[in-house]
């Protein structure tokens, strides 16, 4: 099974097994990863699942659509032009692993 690694602002890391379709948000919420809230249940409506994708994991992720782009404009932690994504809109897909950093705040 592919894995998703979450790196906290203090450097703490947690790696979870996740099926290829399971979103970064869903895997995190179900496992209780701190700092990922997912208040809208993955509808790209709340921006409380914001993550910074680690540079090595960026390739091959789905494009940011208009909706996600808009939501990324109102995240609590600053948007990174390259690395900011909504956790509910990305998953491992065919890759073996995905590494994301959790921002300092979501609400």
């Amino acid at each position, binding site marked *: 099974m592919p894995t998703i690694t979450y790196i906290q602002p203090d450097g703490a890391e947690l790696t979870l097994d996740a099926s290829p379709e399971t979103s970064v948000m*869903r895997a995190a919420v*179900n496992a209780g990863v701190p700092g990922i809230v997912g208040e809208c*249940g993955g*509808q*790209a409506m709340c921006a409380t699942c914001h993550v910074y994708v680690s540079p090595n994991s960026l390739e091959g992720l789905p494009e940011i659509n208009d909706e996600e782009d*808009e939501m990324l404009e109102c995240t609590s932690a600053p948007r990174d032009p390259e690395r900011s994504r909504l956790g509910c809109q990305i998953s491992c897909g065919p890759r073996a692993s995905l590494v994301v950093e959790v921002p300092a705040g979501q609400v």
Partner: protein
Amino acid sequence: MTGQDKAPGHVVVVGAGQAGVQLVDSLRAGGYRGRLTLLSRESERPYQRPPLSKDFVVGGRDAEPLRLRGESFFEDVGVGARWGVSAVAIDRSGQRVRTSAGDWMTYDALVLATGADSRGLGIPGEHLAGVHRLRTLDDARDASGGLESARQVVVVGAGFIGLEFAAGARARGLDVTVVSPTARPLRRSVTPAVSAYLTERQELDGVRFELSEGVAALSGGDDDAGRVAAVVLTSGRTLPADLVVVGVGVTPASALAAEAGVAIEGDGGIAVDGSLRTSDSAIFAIGDCASFPSLHAGRRMRLESVQNATDHARHAAAVLLGQDPGPYAELPWFWSHQGKVKLQIAGLSRPGVSTVLRGDPASGKFSVFAFDDGELVSVESVNSPADHLAARRLLAAGAALSPDEAADLAFDLKAYSRAAPVPA
């Protein structure tokens, strides 16, 4: 932490839904070190309700629920959670609650986050097999499982939950009819333009509507009298149905408070002030069950939304932590997903508002801006998240916007809203 010494020694929270769970989270995150107990009638680990009428309908009985927190969250942050244990009585003078397990728990502060229960129709046949409501995970599993063998679905009530379920059932190729006593769907929730658009979209997808029509009875089949086979309308006509979903609104779960003599509002909600405190200063009420003074509506009201539940919870936590956050003033917002239509609402519409359109409904992307006496009060956006977010910023900041600016696509709403002062 500010005012920590003022924080109560034992906080008991009743209800582990969106509001109750956020409250215990915010209390601990805010540095509360006292004892914290969470009583939950459901034995299920807390989950999100919005997907129950959306992803679940399409995903079937085995769709994975989305949990509110991880498995070990409550233990990790030090919450004494009691799953499957209800609060059954409050002894206010003794500051204690009796639980369904038979014991009494004393509290220094009690938070009622009991939510709401789906309303029934009060008509014959309501308890036949194949008739569902949609409030709990079990409800959703039953209804969704029922769709696997259903062909003709009747949804009673044209509110958000009913319309979402209808869209999902239709997407599974079933025959779907929505019956509503009102002349237009979502009459109480959205402006006529949006309600007309949503109805038309569903009709184009093949959902039928029986509007201004009530339901007199549900009747069983000839071969199986215990299972629903038809819906009898008040006009006398009959619709064949092998699965019925009743989505006619909710009743706030305020009985526990009422029986203890805590003040209840005319809307059935537990009356709270701007600190979300009830008529008993040691008892708070938050989320669906609370009737609160809304700054944005200019009146007292009850709201049923994730935003309301979580913002109430954060506010009550701040009050309990002694942080003196001032009166509750968060901007209400809401979303609904019906098939391919994504509706987002910022603010609260009022009777008698005047509206302007931004964008063309025929394009499938537009927003309705509602003004009351020149003041922007709400914005409903269809497949237009940019408008929604701009609206949220403008409404939260109380920034001025004219109807002409709202309607003018050349007016850069996003840039303008960015310049609006962001409230703390």
